[in-house]
């Protein structure tokens, strides 16, 4: 059986921006697949190419073994797409929007009526279905959006940043709902720049950075691949460069330390990768004490997906976010995306 989704060697340029340089992944039927990466990494562009909103410059995109480019109508019938920003017509009621959506997928009247009622009950919209969507809260809007995307019971549901800007309650409701969907056999592709979201939901993950897939696999595989535990050490709240370098050089000589870097984005904290032995934390503390350097704080953790990202790119996801936020021209990108193909 072909994979539910296949993306291979995808490339897409907008003007002189290489939005996607080389993205490949496959999603098996019934999986939740996460595309993780900082803003501007090319996640949305990848999704747009999958959902027939943009034409790729190169590469294969297939749903259930059929090319999206050659069979756009079939792909559209099989895909449900939930954009990052909920776009509703505020003058229409939830039910009217669902009726419109049903007609766009050419559902027969009776099938549509029953299905709309089913989705309204499922997403607990009953009290609101006949009120204008303009008065809905953010959480309600997202639920209606989910109902709209799922109305035609797609094989593959694609969600772009499904919980950005949502309150915590709605966020956990969305998570729970996605798990229910998976249990019901729907294949789910979601993008996120939230580590915990991808970690908690995804069966498999592709980490994407600057238009390329830099790592992929199950979250636990990815984490175990980057080695032992992490120790983050701060000599002072904001450590001077010379002290940080001195401590780094010292700690690097310890047998339990595999790798040490000074993270200047976090006040020159020292990030260590240590062998999975239990007394590493104590050894490090002891060594530091002997040099007479002070200690502001120290913590040890299992590797996270962020460490996977750090190992591949040399920066944390948060740093990438901050860097991207400074260098991106969001307005220009939006315009480019609107221009489409």
């Amino acid at each position, binding site marked *: 059986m072909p994979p539910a989704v296949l993306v291979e060697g995808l490339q897409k340029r907008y003007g002189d921006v290489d939005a996607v340089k080389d993205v490949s992944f496959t999603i098996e039927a019934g999986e939740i697949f996460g595309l993780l990466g900082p803003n501007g990494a090319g996640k949305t562009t990848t999704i747009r190419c999958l959902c*027939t*909103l943009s034409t790729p410059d190169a590469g294969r995109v297939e749903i259930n073994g*059929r090319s999206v480019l050659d*069979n756009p109508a079939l792909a559209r019938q099989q895909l449900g797409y939930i954009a990052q920003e909920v776009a509703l017509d505020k003058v229409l009621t939830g039910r*009217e929007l669902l009726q419109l959506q049903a*007609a766009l997928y050419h559902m027969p009247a009776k*099938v549509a009526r029953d299905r709309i009622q089913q989705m309204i009950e499922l997403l607990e919209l009953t009290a609101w279905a006949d009120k204008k969507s303009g008065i809905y809260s953010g959480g309600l809007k997202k639920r209606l959006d989910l109902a709209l995307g799922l109305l035609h019971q797609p094989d593959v549901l694609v969600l772009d940043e499904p919980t950005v800007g949502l309150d915590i309650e709605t966020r956990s*409701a969305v998570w*729970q709902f996605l798990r229910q969907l998976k249990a019901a056999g729907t294949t789910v592709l979601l993008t996120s720049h939230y580590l915990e979201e991808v970690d908690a939901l995804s069966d498999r993950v592709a980490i994407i950075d600057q238009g390329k897939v830099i790592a992929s696999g199950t979250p636990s595989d990815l984490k175990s691949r980057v080695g032992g535990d992490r120790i983050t050490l701060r000599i002072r709240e904001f450590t001077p460069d010379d002290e940080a370098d001195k401590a780094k050089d010292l700690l690097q000589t310890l047998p339990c330390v595999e790798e040490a870097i000074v993270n200047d984005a976090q006040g020159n904290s020292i990030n260590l990768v240590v062998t999975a032995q239990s007394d590493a934390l104590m050894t490090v503390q002891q060594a530091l004490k002997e040099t007479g350097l002070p200690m502001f704080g120290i913590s040890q953790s299992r590797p996270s997906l962020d460490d996977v990202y750090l190992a591949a790119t040399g920066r944390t996801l948060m740093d990438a976010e901050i860097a991207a936020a400074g260098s991106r021209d969001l307005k220009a990108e939006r315009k480019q995306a609107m221009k489409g193909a």
Partner: protein
Amino acid sequence: MSTTLTPKPKLSLDNPELRQWKAELSDSSATATPGLFSAAFLQETIAMTRRLFIQLQRRPSTLVAGVIQPVMWLILFGALFQNVPQGLFGESQNYGQFLGAGIIVFTAFGGALNAGLPVMFDREFGFLNRFLVAPLASRYSIVAASAVFIAAMSMVQTAAIIGLSAVLGAGLPDLAGLGLVVLIVLTLVLGVTALSLGLSFALPGHIELIAVIFVTNLPLLFSSTALVPLSFMPQWLRIVASLNPLTYAIEPIRYIYLHPGSWGLTSVVMAAPLGDVKMGDALAILLGFCMISLALIQPLLRRRIA
């Protein structure tokens, strides 16, 4: 209001009826798009049109303004030129009678020219993506829905203008004439709506679209025969006006008004610089304009993937 979703084991995500319908659908070659003359096209067009009418019903100000505006044109312009010596405006007995046809066409044209704006806003808000990711029979349903809506608006406006003109002494066309007026307005609306929607797909944003509408609207009015006849214009403007598609909607309507019961397809409705234009010629030119508009926007509708 609670935002948590309590799991409901009794409610299933699956809908067997829907699944069966989908299975039948993919059996009957879902790969082929149904196209323009299908039940699917009709269904999606009706649904999109319904949305526009719901909007109008809940925000009726557009309709109110849409009727008031041409009425003001008719009254104010009519009064401005009320004392123009008889004979300057061809066979018309008074300027009010002359002006009616121009206002009917200009009003329908203005409405159709603005049709792209809501679509542009849908595009900017991301709502249009719902249409673009759906397996539409044809994206011409987006055009058709707007055209039906604008046409309905234009009919109400046209009725108001014809009614007021009659009160102002312009008389009424005969019944067949009224039918032809409706057809002319509908053809013009379809053609201009298509162009406007094409612009809403091609231009970067609503600011640019408004700018284009702004520089198109009044110049097209003044370079047509809406306000004065060809014979009144300097030579260069006559040439421009005889190239303006609005002229080919205005002159037949004006002729129908002036010759109730005696007009025909071979009646000469206008003496253009390049020769006389018959009623049939004008209608053919109008139809041609409409067809070319519809064909022109096809690549724009397809652009984001066929």
